[in-house]
């Protein structure tokens, strides 16, 4: 409130001093009352109170001051001595208003110029506002928890065992530790059966985050004890989508997974769960005297709040100490990597992660675009100032000081900046929804992105700074000329302001340099993206439909039931017209984390030393590999006969074969996985990408899903004849014809899954490509403009040359050489700058070096050609003018 009062008192300065002396206090009091009332929720909204205050200050404040000036003039005598200071302040405000009026009149007379300048700026400011709102929403906005800087997540050390949990809870630098882990349960009985993601949390979870529920309450400690009535807290989204935002939902019971749970609370919409997409929370039930239950739940992450006085470093030291002590006691359980990895990380970094770097790079890139736009407008203003030499000379002759004229010119440019900025912000706000749609789905904090107060404030400052910056140099240059020059100069002087040309050349070189950097960066990203797209994934993604089936473990308790269900599903779906093949897999490729395990060769002597190697693994039905189009390279496919009582077998990918046995035939060899399961290799299939096109393929082993019960949830993969999307409805009904109570979720064509894995690269590539194109267009327009202007200035000189018998082509060539000089300088600077800065992108590039020769060679040449055209056209036009006309031009 004190801040608001301060700002209000600043606003009051708009009113004349005499008025302020008497009424400032009363007005401030009323304002404070109104604002407090609004904040409490009564009457007018807070922003309206502010708006009225500003409108009043502008309207009445300036009106009163003008009135005072008018009164003084009318009475024909100086205002009272007590008001002398006020008068000079009045006059400043009055002159600013006068300047603004004058500027507007000037724009009206030259609407083309004003429009071009304003639009150029709108482009620059608008693009910057859009990207800044991304940076603001994702990175800068504080997390919606109480004192979020104190919250850390713990890496390495996790809630895997009683020992760990007990020690971590004792840590003095941590005020409270909560565990959470991902769980997906089927929601049955409320609309369509669907498996939804949620979090299993220790009861103190919400207390540590300090998030009050919107409805109901959070979990109590007792609810973490086994045997207590199962409860659940809903997310705002789930509450709205499935329960119609019903206020009476607390107390109702729902079937989640195998339990009937009572709803005890609903989280507010603003709450951000620690794992995106979380739609419910259930308490971890653990006997507090025996944490051994945790041992099975690998993957319990820990989140904690730093104790008062503790820092990240002190907590880190303590955590590592704990990890070290645990390893010392049981080195076979806790590895060295585990100890080294045990650190606390600020929650902000956990949630925002990589996105932060990428967004700052994008902001830098779009900043270049703004600089180029400003350079263009500066050139425009320089040209215009040149054309107004006479007007400025007259004003100076009539007694205006240089400072006065400069102030007037600066008012113009600031006004342009503000108008252009306002247009740009408007465009950015309107296109916000489009931009958010383009963002990769895994972008953290997507929901928080909007054009809010801070974004607007930054846009305002940027517009003002832009206006001042591109107006400063032209204003000073324009007023530098002496009186004699333009006024007394009726001679046909052929020389033009050399200084101005040098400055303009400097601007051109800057523009070109900035454009080169942007265009090269865009080229590198686009090339990366193109390379990613052309990677052979090892399976045919464009004809496969996928969906997730989650038969509830409560009804599918034995492997036989599970096997029967999936056999039935594959039969029914296989019978759907248009379906070519069906299979199922425990985890789709290209969709995020893939499980991996240590493996050893099982048919070599026990004492032989083997390196620690990991292999990915998937549980599949026999039809899976064929439905995905993964070819068989050696041996045989998995078959229905590979079931629970049959010998354990597996099929490996080529990378695994190479890794484990080199050139030897892997068929018939034996492997040991998970530390205790031995199997025989019966087949080798082609490599298929598991994570993303730019990630190396890892060794992989495929098991039969019925030989080793893993989880009953599998992803169905349906090879379709034609567009997979066409068959969604018929496949779904085929699945439900086997068992209508099995939740079906995540229905997507495989293409979409693959697209998701490259989404970030695509986003950055397209955005940078757009910026590069913008830069190219703006820079070439700028160069063209400058050249046209310069050519126009030199019309006389060219006329003389032509009249004296010079060849027109010679003249053009000479002009071009002069024009291309700054371009060449810009190109060299730009290439140097690009070499220095593209390393920022290296993490995003794929199969492309940050100094890729092809890109660096081709793109600057392209830019040079475009600039050359922009230089040639006006030169050609100037040289084709009639010498007589040229000589007569002043």
């Amino acid at each position, binding site marked *: 409130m004190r801040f608001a009062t301060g700002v209000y008192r600043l606003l009051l300065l708009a009113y004349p001093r005499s008025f302020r002396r008497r009424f400032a*206090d*009363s007005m401030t009091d009323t304002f404070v009352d109104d604002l407090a009332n609004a904040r409490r929720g009564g009457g007018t909204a807070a922003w309206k109170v502010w708006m009225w205050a500003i409108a*009043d200050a502008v*309207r009445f*404040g300036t009106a009163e001051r003008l009135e005072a000036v008018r009164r003084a003039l009318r009475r024909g005598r100086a205002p009272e001595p007590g008001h002398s200071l006020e008068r000079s302040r009045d006059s400043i405000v009055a002159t600013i208003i006068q300047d603004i009026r004058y500027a507007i009149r000037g724009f009206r007379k030259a609407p083309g110029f004003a429009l071009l300048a304003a639009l150029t700026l709108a482009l620059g400011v608008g693009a910057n506002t859009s990207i800044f709102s991304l940076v603001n929403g994702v990175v800068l906005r504080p997390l919606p928890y109480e004192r979020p800087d104190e919250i850390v997540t713990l890496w390495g050390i996790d809630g895997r065992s009683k020992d760990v949990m007990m020690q971590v809870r004792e840590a003095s630098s941590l005020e409270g530790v909560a565990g959470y882990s991902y769980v997906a349960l089927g929601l049955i009985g409320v609309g369509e059966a669907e498996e939804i993601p949620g979090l299993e949390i220790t009861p103190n979870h919400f207390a540590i985050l300090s998030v009050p529920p919107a409805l109901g309450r959070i979990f109590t400690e007792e609810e973490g004890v086994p045997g207590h009535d199962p409860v659940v807290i809903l997310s705002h989204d789930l509450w709205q989508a499935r329960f119609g935002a019903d206020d009476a939902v607390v107390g109702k019971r729902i079937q989640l997974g195998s339990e009937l749970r009572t709803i005890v609370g609903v989280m507010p919409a603003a709450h951000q769960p620690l794992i995106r997409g979380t739609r419910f929370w259930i308490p971890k039930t653990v006997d507090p005297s025996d944490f051994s239950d945790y041992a099975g739940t690998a993957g319990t992450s820990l989140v904690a709040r730093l104790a008062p006085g503790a820092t990240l470093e002190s907590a880190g030291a303590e955590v590592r100490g704990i990890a070290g002590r645990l390893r010392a006691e049981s080195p076979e359980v806790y590895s060295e990597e585990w100890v080294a990895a045990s650190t606390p990380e600020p929650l902000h970094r956990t949630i925002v992660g990589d996105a932060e770097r990428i967004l700052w790079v994008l902001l830098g890139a779009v900043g270049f675009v703004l600089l180029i736009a400003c350079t263009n407008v500066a050139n425009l203003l320089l040209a215009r100032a040149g054309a107004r030499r006479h007007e400025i000379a007259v004003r100076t002759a009539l007694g205006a000081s240089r400072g006065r004229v400069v102030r007037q010119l600066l008012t113009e440019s600031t006004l342009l900046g503000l108008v252009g900025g306002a247009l740009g912000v408007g465009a950015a706000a309107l296109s916000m929804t489009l931009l958010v749609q383009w963002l990769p789905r895994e972008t953290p904090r997507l929901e928080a992105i909007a054009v809010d107060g801070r974004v607007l404030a930054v846009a305002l400052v940027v517009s003002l700074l832009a206006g001042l910056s591109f107006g400063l140099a032209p204003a000073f240059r324009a007023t530098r000329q002496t009186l004699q020059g333009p006024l007394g100069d009726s001679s046909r002087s052929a020389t033009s302001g050399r200084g101005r040309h040098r400055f303009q050349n400097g601007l051109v070189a800057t523009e070109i340099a900035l454009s080169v950097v942007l265009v090269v960066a865009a080229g590198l990203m686009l090339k990366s993206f193109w390379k990613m797209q052309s990677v052979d994934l090892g399976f045919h993604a464009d004809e496969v439909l996928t969906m997730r089936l989650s038969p509830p473990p409560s009804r599918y308790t034995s492997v036989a039931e599970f096997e029967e269900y999936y056999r039935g599903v594959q039969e029914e779906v296989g019978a759907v017209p248009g379906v070519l093949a069906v299979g199922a897999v425990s985890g789709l490729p290209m969709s995020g984390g893939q499980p991996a395990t240590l493996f050893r060769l099982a048919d070599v002597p026990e004492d032989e030393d083997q390196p620690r190697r990991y292999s990915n693994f998937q549980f599949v039905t026999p039809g899976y590999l064929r439905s995905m189009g993964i070819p068989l390279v050696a041996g045989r496919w998995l078959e229905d006969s590979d079931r629970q009582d049959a010998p354990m077998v597996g099929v490996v990918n080529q990378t695994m074969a190479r890794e484990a046995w080199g050139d030897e035939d892997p068929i018939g060899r034996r492997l040991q996985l998970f530390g205790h399961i031995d199997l025989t290799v019966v087949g080798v299939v082609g490599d298929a990408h598991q994570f993303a096109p730019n990630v190396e393929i890892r060794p992989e082993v495929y098991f039969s899903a019925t030989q080793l019960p893993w989880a009953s949830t599998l992803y169905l993969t349906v090879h379709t004849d034609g567009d997979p999307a066409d068959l969604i409805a018929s496949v779904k009904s085929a699945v439900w014809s086997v068992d209508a109570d099995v939740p079906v979720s995540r229905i997507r064509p495989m293409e979409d899954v693959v697209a998701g894995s490259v989404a970030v690269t695509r986003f950055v590539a397209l955005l940078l490509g757009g910026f590069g194109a913008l830069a190219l267009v703006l820079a070439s327009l700028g160069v063209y403009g400058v050249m046209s202007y310069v050519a126009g200035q030199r019309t006389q000189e060219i006329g003389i040359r032509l009249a004296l018998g010079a060849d027109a082509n010679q003249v053009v060539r000479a002009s071009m050489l002069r024009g291309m000089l700054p371009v060449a300088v810009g190109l060299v600077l730009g290439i140097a700058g690009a070499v220095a800065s593209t390393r920022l992108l290296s993490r995003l590039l794929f199969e492309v070096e940050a100094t890729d020769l092809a890109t660096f060679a081709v793109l600057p040449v392209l830019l040079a050609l475009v600039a050359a055209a922009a230089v040639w056209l006006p030169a050609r036009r100037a040289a084709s003018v009639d010498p007589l006309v040229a000589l007569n031009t002043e």
Partner: protein
Amino acid sequence: MAKTKYLGEFEQTILLAVLRVGDGAYGSAIRKEVEACTGRKVTHGAAYITLDRLEAKGLVESELGSSAPGRGGRRKRLFEVTPDGVKALRASREALSKLWQGVEELSEES
């Protein structure tokens, strides 16, 4: 004193509100009175500026009231209509009534 000035519409509204509030007529009270009677929303700036102008014309007088408790000791400025102000109000009302006379008869006829 120059001859009676004619009042603008808003000036009349403010003057009348000051009269209506009577004792303890400070800025906010005057504003609220106008809003309550006419339903018209008045901003602080408009109200205070008009009061300032009225005071310059001598139609209203103001002085700092005694220190009010609970406001950090800030004193409110209280307003009062001067005899000149009352005269100006009357003159305006008379002028208006005269202008209304013929019109009322006309509207009653139709």
